[in-house]
């Protein structure tokens, strides 16, 4: 799996000439813009077909129902940008949700539970990251082991679903900010905050730029003297943390922890990130794009419910869309390689 060069080098934050900078940014933004076009096109098509689609209620629920996925996709963006993949996020989300529910039921105060859960997620990421970087295990296999471990451990926590009655966790979902029609829940606020933080880290910190560099060419990055080891482990830790946050969000969304939650969610997250314009070979993409990708996923899901079709069509459509995007990426990369 030789990683071909990405279409454009990620824009350096210190390119002096303003015009040059804007051109470069545009080239890397093309896939993201394509995702925006698809999203808008789907919204318009749905509006025309169903008559009443772009309503405040549906648009709000688009964010509310997919808040956990937005968080997961933000973390996944880091991993994919570095040229890796993290299959463990769905299972880690289930495990952290279980852990959260179990601790809350055992009477541990919420202020202790939330940090504990996030640390647990980070630990999973750390294990995977160390395996990937220091032992040269393929990201796919290392995160698979993490997925097994998290899924099995969540059953160790409890075989049955645990109901959550903690007012703070439930409040994340039930409190509605805004008007009756346009509303945000705290979970959505958290999700959007995660995206903003992710975008800031990726665009404006040394660590973020190192992640892009690693995705572009790991060897060059190492030769440049950038801290490859730290960044490579850290992307998996970040993915683990975001999986833990997603676990909290999902727990408040369903008001329960359950070990079978989030089976296949890792695939949804990967699909969302790729549809959002992040190159699977790493090195090019944006956190905002992943948000768009999740919204595309959400619109497909809602449309299929509206059509009254089998919910299995969601997966098929997402699979098809993922394929289309990957093929297009492949063509772009190949053309860039020829140049």
């Amino acid at each position: 799996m030789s990683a071909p060069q990405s279409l454009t080098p990620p824009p350096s934050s210190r390119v002096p000439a303003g015009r040059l900078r804007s051109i470069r940014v545009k080239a890397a933004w093309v896939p993201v813009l394509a995702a925006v076009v698809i999203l808008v096109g789907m919204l318009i098509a749905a509006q025309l077909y169903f008559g009443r689609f772009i309503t405040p209620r549906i648009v709000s629920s688009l964010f509310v129902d997919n808040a956990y996925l937005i968080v997961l996709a933000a973390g996944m963006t880091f991993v994919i940008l570095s040229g890796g993949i993290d299959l463990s996020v769905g299972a880690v989300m289930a495990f952290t949700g279980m852990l959260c529910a179990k601790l809350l039921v055992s009477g541990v105060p919420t202020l202790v539970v939330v940090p504990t859960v996030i640390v647990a997620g980070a630990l999973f990421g750390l294990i995977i990251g160390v395996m990937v970087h220091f032992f040269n295990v393929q990201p796919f296999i290392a995160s698979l082991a993490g997925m097994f471990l998290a899924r099995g451990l969540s059953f160790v926590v409890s075989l049955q679903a645990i109901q959550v009655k903690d007012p703070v966790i439930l409040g994340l979902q039930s409190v509605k900010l805004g008007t009756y029609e346009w509303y945000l829940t705290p979970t959505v606020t958290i999700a959007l905050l995660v995206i903003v933080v992710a975008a800031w880290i990726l665009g404006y910190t040394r660590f973020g730029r190192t992640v892009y560099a690693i995705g572009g060419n790991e060897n060059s990055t190492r030769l440049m003297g950038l801290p490859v080891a730290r960044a490579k482990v850290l992307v998996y830790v970040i993915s683990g943390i975001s999986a833990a946050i997603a676990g909290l969000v999902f727990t408040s969304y369903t008001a329960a922890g359950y070990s079978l939650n989030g089976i296949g969610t890792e695939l949804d997250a990967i699909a969302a990130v790729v549809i959002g314009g992040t190159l699977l070979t790493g090195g090019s993409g944006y956190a905002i794009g992943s948000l768009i990708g999740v919204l595309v996923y959400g619109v497909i899901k809602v449309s299929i419910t509206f059509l009254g079709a089998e919910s299995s069509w969601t997966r098929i459509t997402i699979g098809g869309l993922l394929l289309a995007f990957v093929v297009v990426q492949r063509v772009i990369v190949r053309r860039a390689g020829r140049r």
Partner: protein
Amino acid sequence: MSRILRSRVIWPIAALLALVVLNTISRPTFLSITVRNGELYGSLIDILRNSAPLMLVALGMCLVIATRGIDLSVGAQMAISGAVSLTIIADSPAPNSMGTVAIAILAGVALTLVLGLWNGFLVSVIGIQPIIATLVLMLAGRGIALLITGGFITTITSTPYAVMARGYVVGFPFAFLVSASAVAIVSLLVRRTALGVLTEAVGINPAASRLAGVRSRGIVWSLYGLSGLLAGVAGILYSSNIMAADANNAGINIELDAILAVVLGGTSLAGGKFTLAGTVVGVFIIQTLTSTITFLGVPPSVTPVFKAIVVIIVCLSQSDRVRSGLRRLRPPKPLAIATAIDSTSSTSGSAA
């Protein structure tokens, strides 16, 4: 030759034997095989029979991995082939006739062969990474299977179909005979023709093998097809065992078990050299492990924890860092002693 065989397959066999010994100690009846009406029964026979679907899938997976690829869609393909053949049988007026069952099985397996070739097309012609190319079908495949069954779990009663998983032929379970003959055919195909060598060439260095005139595209393409075909047969066996097409649960996580079996058997995930014998042993290890865990009374849903631990241990033992670390530990360290003598002589040099 014997040395190569030893170094590669000896550890998996040792692990399998250790598991068998553990089982025999905890329940002495483990090794006993009884004969009733000319049919064999016993824990070992159960393991042989239950391992059949995994064996088929792992065989295909081993060859795909040898080309530096991976096939994540095998579980979904199992669900599809089961769904197709059971839907055909359920819709037919004569579910008990041999003809219906034969058509149903052929249709199911033919469809997964096509799906396997589709994977191969994406990987070898379009050039998408194998993980992603097969991920697409893994995502969409279960949806397709659900569409075929109409969202329900199709159940049937068909005597000839039930024979697949539960029947016996000349004393052995039919499913075991299917997997054994698949192993035999694939081994002959791979080791008695040039296919095996060419596959390894493609896996070791795709560019060099292409320059040497190996048609890597065709080889990779057909091996994904083979993987699909075998997954289809596995799906038939699975659905015959429960006599139902469960699109959501058929072959769930089997891709992970298959990859694990291949890796346990000593085939590196980096591609290249592969060993079918090791894969067979790996499958038996996993099946024995599963039945041991069930016997010990651990809830089956906790099984992934054990598998995760096995995966981590195996992967770490394959990594260069650990290997070189072990190598440094193992020999009598002439170099270390020399430096030690050096340092002592330099410190006590003045005294001497």
